[in-house]
């Protein structure tokens, strides 16, 4: 049982929870995720860790309402408990001084990108973040993103905030302006697919953090499998980050929709 210490609404259907998890707060690194089970009838779902506070013994999770389980989580309040929380899972982000790193995040993908931005900056990289959303009120964690980014470009589909356009427009502007050594992308699968197509065109090494369906999250079930470079890989133990240019996004998107009819 893990107690919810703080609940913040980030946008109409995105909430941020600060949850008691002292062991995970201490052992997690950028890129790690956790598996949450809200109550005894709930699914086990993967959520990426946005932030951690070792002193308070808490981790921060950002959740978008998309299905039964996320609706249940979002309905919880401060003082309530998550039935089960396990982690940190997956491999942490490989951090070193690459030079200029472009962090391309969309929607709630900004939350897991946050610790990566921080770690990259601390490793001496120039960090340019392109954050995108459909509209102004869906842009989350902007202040936190700005704290560790050298430059932040906000893109909205409707132009209600930042620049009008898709994330790929923002990325292409950066690429045309300066040399980018690495791109990291986290967000909806379709978005990552198009980011990847673009960076492939410019031959920029790209890492994508995948958020697939999982059950146990420890390598046991294989629900999270993806094709990377023609080989089957498990997101939970081999990932969640992969060489984006090798990921079969179309297959991944098809697999993400496998249980859609059940919702």
């Amino acid at each position, binding site marked *: 049982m893990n107690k919810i210490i703080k609940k913040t609404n980030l946008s109409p259907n995105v909430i941020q929870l600060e949850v008691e998890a002292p062991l995970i707060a201490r052992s997690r690194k950028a890129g790690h995720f956790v598996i949450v089970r809200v109550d005894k009838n709930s699914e086990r779902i993967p959520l990426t860790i946005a932030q951690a506070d070792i002193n308070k013994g808490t981790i921060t999770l950002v959740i978008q309402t998309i299905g039964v389980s996320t609706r249940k989580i979002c309905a919880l309040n401060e003082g309530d408990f998550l039935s089960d929380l396990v982690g940190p899972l997956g491999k942490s982000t490989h951090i070193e001084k690459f030079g200029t790193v472009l962090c391309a995040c969309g929607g709630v993908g900004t939350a897991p990108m946050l610790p990566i931005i921080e770690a990259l900056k601390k490793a001496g990289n120039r960090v340019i973040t392109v954050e995108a959303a459909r509209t102004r009120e869906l842009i989350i964690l902007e202040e936190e993103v700005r704290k560790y980014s050298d430059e932040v470009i906000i893109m909205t589909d409707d132009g209600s905030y930042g620049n009008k356009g898709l994330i790929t427009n923002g990325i292409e502007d950066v690429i045309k302006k300066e040399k980018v050594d690495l791109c990291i992308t986290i967000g909806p699968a379709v978005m990552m697919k198009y980011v990847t197509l673009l960076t492939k065109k410019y031959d920029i090494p790209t890492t994508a953090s995948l958020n697939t369906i999982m059950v146990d999250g420890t390598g046991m079930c294989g629900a999270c499998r993806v094709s990377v470079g023609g080989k089957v890989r498990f997101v939970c133990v081999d990932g969640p980050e992969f060489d984006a240019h090798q990921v079969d996004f179309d*297959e991944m998107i098809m697999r993400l929709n496998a249980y859609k009819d059940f919702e």
Partner: protein
Amino acid sequence: MMTKEDMLALRNESWREELRKKLKNKERASISRTHMPELNPEYRSHNYEEVNQGLSLEQALVESKRCLDCPDPQCISGCPVGINIPMFIKNIERGEVLEAARVLKETSALPAVCGRVCPQEKQCESRCIMNKMGKDPVAIGYLERFAADYERESGSISIPKLDSSNGIKIAVVGSGPAGLSFAGDMAKSGYDVTVYEALHEIGGVLKYGIPEFRLPNEIVDVEIEILRKMGVKFHTNIIIGKTISYEDLHDAGYQGIFIATGAGLPNFMNIPGENLSGVLSSNEYLTRVNLMHAGRSDSDTPVFLGKRVAVIGGGNTAMDSVRTARRLGAEKAMIVYRRSEQEMPARVEEVKHAKEEGVEFMNLYNPIEYIGNEKGKVKQMIVQKMELGEPDASGRRSPIPIEGAIETIDVDLVIVSVGVSPNPLIPNEFKGLNTSRWGTIIVNQDTMQTDLSDVYAGGDIVRGGATVILAMGDGRKAAEAMHVGLQTNNKK
């Protein structure tokens, strides 16, 4: 562990001598083996009720008479944990069923589980003297289950005797059969044992893998409760190597660590269409149903309710999956196995039960491709007909494709059950732990000690995919060796 002399001394106790005299061996051998009462196949294939109903007291008393109480009982050497089999059976014969249960618990932490899922026909029962006399072996497994169930239902469950506490902290990684067996033995020897489990339930494969109709969770929970009463502590939702590191365990004062994380990663065949939706591993399918209770109205976890289900493989897990599919409403539930029934690794009883429940066996067929609909959901499988060739390295005749013999079969759910590979999580996180080229942890076969002197390992993380009882045997062996090691160290 009990020596041959100890066993002989117990055999020479007067009650056993008298019992032996009561009936002539010829009379004992003339009793025919009892049959396990089972639920009606049509009824049971629509629910999760346990198929085998267990022997009645009358049946057990008769069956126990069939055991000749041999001077050199071979059944014991066929048991991976070395249960004193004649001793417990003779206690049943004299009507001391609770004492029989106590004898079982001296060596096995999970008798009610083993009595249900052990392949006795390949172990203890295969060595029974009755076989040599041209008779069916004593139903040791049925009797084991009977004694354990009798004790549980009597309400007077005995807790094994514990040595006085030595205060030495021991960590167990994983709460499946290997971990539980190890924990039980170490607790008996006076250690302060803590079991860490990654999932939210204790029991490992006994909970997420083996279905209710073969092993009810309630039975597992009772055995776990006994371990708790013996002082074993359990922590769920902890991943050793991630949540808590090897170094953390040292810092917390743990002097011995037993790794029993099981065989994690499901194998796939790497054939076209295997990543279509509706094609999943037996681990995923069974975990959804058994651990997450998918298919029940109060569970949020979804599961595909296939009408035409193909399960690929011929092991016990394949049988568990196909029988689960029947219970979830499959009209056509098929086993697709590339060899013939003779080579099938599943227990004879599982195959029999599956057939009774209407499962179709497509033996000597191998899937070569899956075809999906416009949404990427599987709709057909293409299978290759096989024939048996010469025996391969495993001694089984290897299947060879018959050229041109290809069929297409409509399916809406495919469950791949072709084995598992060791989970790399622990080997990746414990520096200095060596693994084989298959990813299994390398241990000294006599002691189960790894290349890290305070770390022992057993079960499927060492074997790569075996049975509950072999895992339990490893746990016992490791406990004995670790106990000896720690006693020697602490005397220095």
